[in-house]
């Protein structure tokens, strides 16, 4: 494993009562790259994400992040190391405004979140940064809208803004474009490209044009195992991948 590897998994395996959702997956993500994880439905991509962020405990295998073995860390501690994920089904704080959603993340990064004796006026210091982040994802005019009332696509955008607020070293995005209009997809794509400049991104995505456009490297999972790995051009020519995932009709 070289210095350039930021996140690596060895023999990652997850068994659900005899069913191997992920088995013996080896994965290494190079620092500063955008790495895509693709594969048919049920291939184990979300499960992999859950394992890497410890939302599930692996049955077997090790995970190293920045050379440190994090296999036994708690999910919160992993996030604190700068490895932050988003969810496949959108995850916002529904009764808080978009602004408050982002602020919660900023607050964590600053570490005053245990102060129960201080007034929450102190949180205003984050407003400026929060506005910037909302602007980046195109939600500036929804700053005071409760997240619950945002449409699906906008919730996804908000989720990304919240994730960015932590200024993570590495992002794990689970289908960030699902349910978005073309317009939004383009905006979020360019956003991801921009934020990925000094970060590492691992993402699951079914939208192949997004994948081909953004990713430096692709790992294809099928039935819980790595089927192929390489650049988009390499992978998309692999017959097994075409058969299992891409299909014939794609342009």
């Amino acid at each position, binding site marked *: 494993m070289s210095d350039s590897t930021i996140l690596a998994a060895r023999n990652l395996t997850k068994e659900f009562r005899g069913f191997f959702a992920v088995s013996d997956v080896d994965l290494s993500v190079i620092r500063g790259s955008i790495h895509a994880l693709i594969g048919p*439905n049920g291939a184990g991509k979300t499960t992999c994400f859950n394992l890497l962020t410890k939302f599930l405990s692996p049955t077997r295998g090790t995970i190293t992040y920045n050379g440190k073995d994090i296999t036994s860390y708690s999910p919160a501690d992993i996030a604190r190391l700068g490895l932050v994920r988003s969810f496949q089904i959108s995850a916002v704080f529904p009764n808080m405004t978009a602004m408050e959603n982002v602020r919660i993340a900023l607050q964590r990064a600053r570490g005053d979140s245990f102060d129960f004796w201080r007034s929450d006026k102190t949180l205003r210091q984050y407003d400026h940064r929060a506005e910037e982040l909302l602007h980046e994802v195109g939600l500036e005019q929804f700053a005071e809208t409760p997240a619950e009332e945002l449409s699906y696509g906008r919730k996804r955008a908000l989720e990304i803004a919240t994730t960015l607020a932590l200024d993570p070293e590495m992002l794990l995005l689970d289908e960030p474009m699902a349910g978005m*209009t073309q*317009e939004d997809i383009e905006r979020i794509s360019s956003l991801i490209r921009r934020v990925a400049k000094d970060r590492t991104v691992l993402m699951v995505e079914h939208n192949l044009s997004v994948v081909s456009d953004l990713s430096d490297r692709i790992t294809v999972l099928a039935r819980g195992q790595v089927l192929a790995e390489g650049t988009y051009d390499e992978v998309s020519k692999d017959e097994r991948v075409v058969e299992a995932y891409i299909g014939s009709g794609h342009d």
Partner: protein
Amino acid sequence: MTEAGLMERTGDAATADMVLKVRDLHAWYGESHVLHGIDFDVREGEVVTLLGRNGAGKSTTLKTIMGILAKRKGSVVYKGEELINQPSRQVARRGIAFCPEERGIFASLTVEENLYLPPQVSQGGWDVDRIFELFPNLRERLSSQGTKLSGGEQQMLAIGRILRTGARLLLLDEPTEGLAPVIVQQIGSTIARLKQEGFTIVLVEQNFHFAAKLADRHYIVDQGRVVDVIPGEEVEARMEDLHAYLGV
């Protein structure tokens, strides 16, 4: 758009063969008024899509037709019968089936139970073998808890489930969301096949490339209204308009 305008565009050949006529549909979530008068028509055996930006009111339209939204107004005529005041179970009994965007797989039921859950409303539904042929993943996981399926598998289950019922009008809300390209293709051909078999389909889609190949007509929804209609054959010619509407 006025009724006259709409008629003109859909070709007012004979309103008689319209299986579904939606007129001036309004709906509210609590106090917030979301649909401001939706109009559209579907003929027997057609596939039409509702296109529009996030939050335009597409899903709400389907839910309102289904009778799910408590507060609604206007007219939904299916095969000559007014449904606007019917409870949703009656709407379903008329042969309309709905596949929601959040999929609605039941956690307390196994995959198999989920699949068999909706009662058959008429003859001609698919049998399960045919569903498994289309979505082989499901067969393997029959005894799993429904929500333990992956996101995409849940989507397959949700679609498979309503094919069984024999409903002739299918309301599909983003059926391809989160599915692998191969499966999207399969669903595309399935919809085409359903159309051949005489099913009528109203499709809500973000994936315009997918929708474009299938639909007879596209209704553009914006802020709770239908603002334009683009017949399938005019799509190429009106790409500009579409760009403006959807940012495609």
